[in-house]
């Protein structure tokens, strides 16, 4: 919790939530098997080792696979209305980061396997219990040079 802001899930974001440009996705890297996992863990989900380093991940990556959500997801959700078809992707974060699921803010036709993306964090919804702004994440396609 940072002021009146909180992460969408504890242990999944790092940085000062007041400065959204500085926020990064966070998680654990296993010292035994080397894998990177989204979210702070107690043990490695891959090999069960408790020897973990808690780290921040790169804010850039590339699309491993994608689909387009043509219809709104079932309630409850905090997605914008009316629903606009939205690409959703498995993204390989750079620097041997994890492969994570994330929405991509782009025209559905612009998503492609191998496409380069960067992280954008923002206010997703308001936590009903505390009234805090909940910070979540999405990606945008890099501009083609």
């Amino acid at each position, binding site marked *: 919790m940072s002021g009146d802001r909180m992460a969408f899930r504890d242990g999944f974001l790092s940085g000062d939530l007041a400065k959204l440009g500085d926020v990064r996705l966070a998680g654990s890297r296993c010292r035994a098997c080397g894998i990177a996992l*989204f979210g702070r863990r107690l043990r490695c989900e891959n090999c069960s080792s408790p020897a973990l380093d808690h780290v921040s991940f790169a804010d850039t990556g590339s699309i491993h696979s994608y*689909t*387009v959500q043509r219809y*709104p997801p079932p309630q*409850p*959700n905090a*997605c914008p209305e009316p629903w606009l078809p939205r690409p959703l992707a*498995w993204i390989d974060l750079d620097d041997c980061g994890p492969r994570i699921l994330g929405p991509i803010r782009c025209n559905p036709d612009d998503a492609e396997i191998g496409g380069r993306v960067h992280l954008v964090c923002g206010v997703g919804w308001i936590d009903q219990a505390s009234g805090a702004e909940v910070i979540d994440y999405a990606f945008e396609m890099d501009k083609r040079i």
Partner: protein
Amino acid sequence: MSKAVIVGVGMTAFGRHPTTHFTHLAAQAIEEALVDADMDFTEIQQAFCSRVYLPSSTGARVFEVMGRTGISCPDVEGACGAALAGVRQAKLMVESGQVDIALAFGVEKIGKGFMPPTILYDDWQCQMGLTQNPQYWALNARRHMHDHGTTAMHMAKVAAKAKRNGALNPKAFFRKPMTVEEILASPMVNDPLTLYMLCSPVDGAAAAIVVNEKLAHRFGGRPIEIAACEHAISRYPLLNASSFCTTPTDHPSVYRMTAEQAYARAGIGPEDIDVVEVQDNDAFSELEYYEELGFCPRGEAGRMIDDGVTELGGRMPVNPGGGLQARGEPLGASHLGQIYEIVKQLRGEAEQRQVEGARTGLAQVFGAFGHCGVTMLKRAY
């Protein structure tokens, strides 16, 4: 160790049963299995009830309808693999000699539309809208297309096969044949998956009576051996609903792992199987299972459907009962619906959808959180 054999199966029509209480749905399937085995309910020594969305102690509630015989009947929950987990427990208890006669039944009543996402997903996944199950299958499909040249037409052919077979199954939910053109033209849900490439959650129940082989002669005389019934939770990464992180590893998929365990235990390889039911939540997943269960090399599933290998009349018919895409998926009962189909096939009782001369069959399930399993059945008479 004794062998466990199935001597009776029962199944309601899978579909919409808005006015039937779930205990009565379950009872309908159990009664059919009892008639099939020529057995009375009071002879059953142990039961397992599989369900996912139904309430606590669904199995015990069914005893209000069937009669309180004083036996054990815990609920067994394992997402879409729930019924396999129940059948496995029944098999293990019979094999170990703890009991001679066990009942595995599954029941679900879920109604129409999206399943409530809060049961599968954390609050943040719901809020971010990451809760459409087909999106996970679509992500796998898109990558397979990229890597292996699989096409939407391949998936449409799988869906059309399911609809054709379902039209021959009086207990299937969806009984209207469709062309590949109609399937491709139906609304896009999660690219590349269109509406008619997806299964529907439905209501229904199914049951199997599992006995020690030494007693089989007393109960119908057409025993089907459970040659293997393997269950596991996926190693990392989990490539399905609820997963938010899938960093690649060298582990085999849980589909391959459970299939190989089942082949080893049964002493039956994929080349020896006559008829198959797989967890076709969507048309692409069926293609993926052709490869992961060892029916063809990786990347060649599209060719299998192009060549008609898995059609009724092909070398290895897959989902002759219509699969989940046409039969529908009552989660807790689904694997027992597959077993019902395979048992009917191995006995030569599958009527218009009969696979001629089938003697060995495989049924495979996969569900949320990585529940996966394979049951191998073979004729024992």
